[in-house]
């Protein structure tokens, strides 16, 4: 069984001769775009500055992960601004962002790119715009559930949930590491939970909170 979403990273040197090219249409009609997408994302990312991007590429160059992305962060901003919603929300880029904030501190327009990525992740999760069993949304969801349940997160339980929901076989692969962590006292299976869980749930699930498109 193969891990579904993330494709293996191929370096240039390792690539075999390219297969026969197929013809794909690259033309984009305005009617295929969502022109309100840029402002919508800017608003949700507290990043009204998103629109002031000058496409300098500092974000892509400083990003430690950009060379594994299908679109560099700069392209994601351009595409978001121009309404390429489908491509952006389907991209691997938003899931590869590790929230290291390098782009945010170096951006000459002070665009909070990391927050833009979060906004895109939220958008993608809410609209189910990701491959089934993609581990990151699942992890986010599992994390959310854990915290709603106990108020704290027990890493071991979180990981087990993650693997059960995505790829149970991977658990076996990770088992050795788990065993080591367990032996050195770095993995506890006991559940941590808080006393004020009732109040916490009241805060999180109160009437004022924004309703997500997908019930959590």
């Amino acid at each position, binding site marked *: 069984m193969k891990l579904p979403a993330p494709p293996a990273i191929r370096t240039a040197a390792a690539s075999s001769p390219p297969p026969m090219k197929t013809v794909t249409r690259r033309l984009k009609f305005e009617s295929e775009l969502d022109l309100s997408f840029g402002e919508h994302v800017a608003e949700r990312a507290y990043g009204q500055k998103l629109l002031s991007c000058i496409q*300098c590429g500092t974000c*892509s160059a400083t990003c430690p992960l950009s060379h594994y992305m299908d679109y560099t962060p700069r392209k994601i901003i351009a595409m978001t601004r121009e309404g390429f919603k489908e491509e952006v929300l389907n991209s691997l880029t938003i899931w590869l962002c590790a929230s290291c904030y390098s782009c945010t501190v170096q951006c*000459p327009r002070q665009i909070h790119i990391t927050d833009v990525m979060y906004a895109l992740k939220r958008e993608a999760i809410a609209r189910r715009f990701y491959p089934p069993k993609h581990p990151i949304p699942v992890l986010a969801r599992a994390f959310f559930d854990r915290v709603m349940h106990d108020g704290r997160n027990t890493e071991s339980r979180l990981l087990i949930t993650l693997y059960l929901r995505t790829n149970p076989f991977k658990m076996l692969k990770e088992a050795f590491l788990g065993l080591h962590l367990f032996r050195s006292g770095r993995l506890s299976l006991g559940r941590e939970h808080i006393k004020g869980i009732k109040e916490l749930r009241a805060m999180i699930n109160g009437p004022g909170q924004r309703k997500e498109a997908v019930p959590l």
Partner: protein
Amino acid sequence: MPESNGHDAPRIGFYVCHCGHNIAGIVDVAAVAKFAGALPNVVVARDYKYMCSDPGQELITTDIRELKLNRIVVASCSPLLHEHTFRVATEKGGLNPFYFQMVNIRENVSWVSDDGKAATVKACDLVRAAVRRVAVHHPLETKRVRIHPDVLIVGGGISGIHAALTLANAGKKVTLVEREPTIGGHMAMFDKTFPTLDCAACILTPKMSAVKNHPNITLWSYSEVTEVSGYVGNYTVKVKRKPRYVSEELCVGCMECIDACVYKEGKTPDEFNQGLSKRKPVYIPFPQATPQVVLIDPETCIEFKSGRCKKTCVEKCDRDAIDFKQKEEIREIRVGAIILATGFKTFDAKRIPYYGYGKFPNVYTSIEVERLVNASGPTSGELILRDGRRPKTVGIIHCVGSRDKNTNRWCSRTCCMYSLKLAHLLKEHSHAEVYNFYIDIRAAGKAYEEFYDKLLEENIHFIRGRVAEVTDWCARPEEKDKLIIRVEDTMIGVVRRVPVDMVVLAVGMEPKEDAQDVRRMFNISCSTEGFFLERHPKLAPVDTFTDGIYIAGACQGPKDIPDSVAQAGAAAAQALSLIDAGEVELEPNTAYVVEEDCSGCKSCLAICPYTAISRDEAKQKAVINEALCKGCGTCVATCPSGAIRQHLFEDEQIFSEIQGLLEADEPILTGGQA
């Protein structure tokens, strides 16, 4: 001619300007006119497309004559723009020009509102206030003062030099004050100039010696302005002349003292060469320095430090020009106009640690490279790096400290072009592969685009992307001992690692460190970036808000040589037009004392910054010297018995304005927006 003694019942003419769509697009001008027409004392209320046009002004003059108006109110743009225009129109109609009041409904209303209803209400309030105010206006006489014909120019870079020569050639006496030991400024440091590749020294030094030799120019180098007082046409300026410890009159610039200095080699980083070479305690900044006079740096000279030097320099000088006892001097001059051409400073590249300036020796700033490739520079024009290597690959990083909200948000305008120039020169000197890393190439001057084209054909690499970092982190064997430039090639959409031997940082232009002190001294303003603020960005680009003070060159904003020279010429022309007019009109907004109300308490005396107020001991009353009063009105607000008043800003007039603003019966109703 109608009576204008101010005792008549007011007959007010009101005019509201459409200013095309500028005002009428938001404010309902017809409604404003109708509203004004119903106000007390208003005889006629009109709206017109452009009040400042001839027919617009004609309306006013005709109405004054035909309708026997004795007060005028115009609601249009800012009084800072057209108050004078309408005062003249009022006067043309036969009234005293100060029977006029202006309402600003463009800058203060239409341009800052998007709700037409609220804007119209606001305009009506302001109009009501002005109508009330003008009713209590008085006729006033303007004051005229003579203008001193001499001009002071501060800063001896290319702008100051050009302005000085222009004025001197027109027969005006000019004093040029330069802080450094030589004039020439940044331009003197450059190797070649874009896009023609003229040698900077070749075109600049003739102008420098022209300054030195011009009978109408007094050149005070190594000097600084310390104090400015007075007003348009009559400025008094104190200048500090720093000691060179070498007599300017005696020294002929033979430089034998430099050879004779007990220091065999220079020990101090040479300022002119950006620290890339060393100079001695006795030195001349560069061979063509103007004036051709050496100077001694007391910080490093042994005689100053210990008093026990052999003084070989003194021995050598057959003109006895060296004088260790020379003292700082303060000179005072009187001038009618002042041109500030104080220039810029380059961005401190250390502020962006990502580019490794100061950490990696082979990272240079552009100005350092100018010296490095210059034949009279530290390496005599050989491209030898700080570590002794000769570069095979060079990366030029654009926009360092420009277009970046983390440092300076403005475009420095010159870096694209000088980077192209340096790319050309570096390639010419070293046959290296040269990379330009740019965000946008801005080549908008005459023959600039053609220069860019030439560079492309020279096979210089142009990578569109802002560099994220310069590191010594090598990921491949071929990257060893190189500086790695990491950048996204945005045209291709791929992140690239470019290993180079030399990095050139195209640093931007910034206001001088002490721009704020200078502007305070000359009583002018700075824009938010810190450059000197012009009176109007389009129509008064070399004037300031202080009459008689003009600005030229990069102290006003980043500029290249052609633009600096053009602006310097413009500033000289403005100064000339002021001086040749011979005299100037002053706003009659001075303070005056109503003697019978004055209790002689002396509260006002200390408050006046211009010592315009004194006390008549015989009468025991305050007296204001109108010539010294500048019309701030602070004494008026201070006087406990209300005995001091201010022309044009009488208490009564301001209270009328307040009343007019607030006497609406109903609270302001707007669309509920804020």
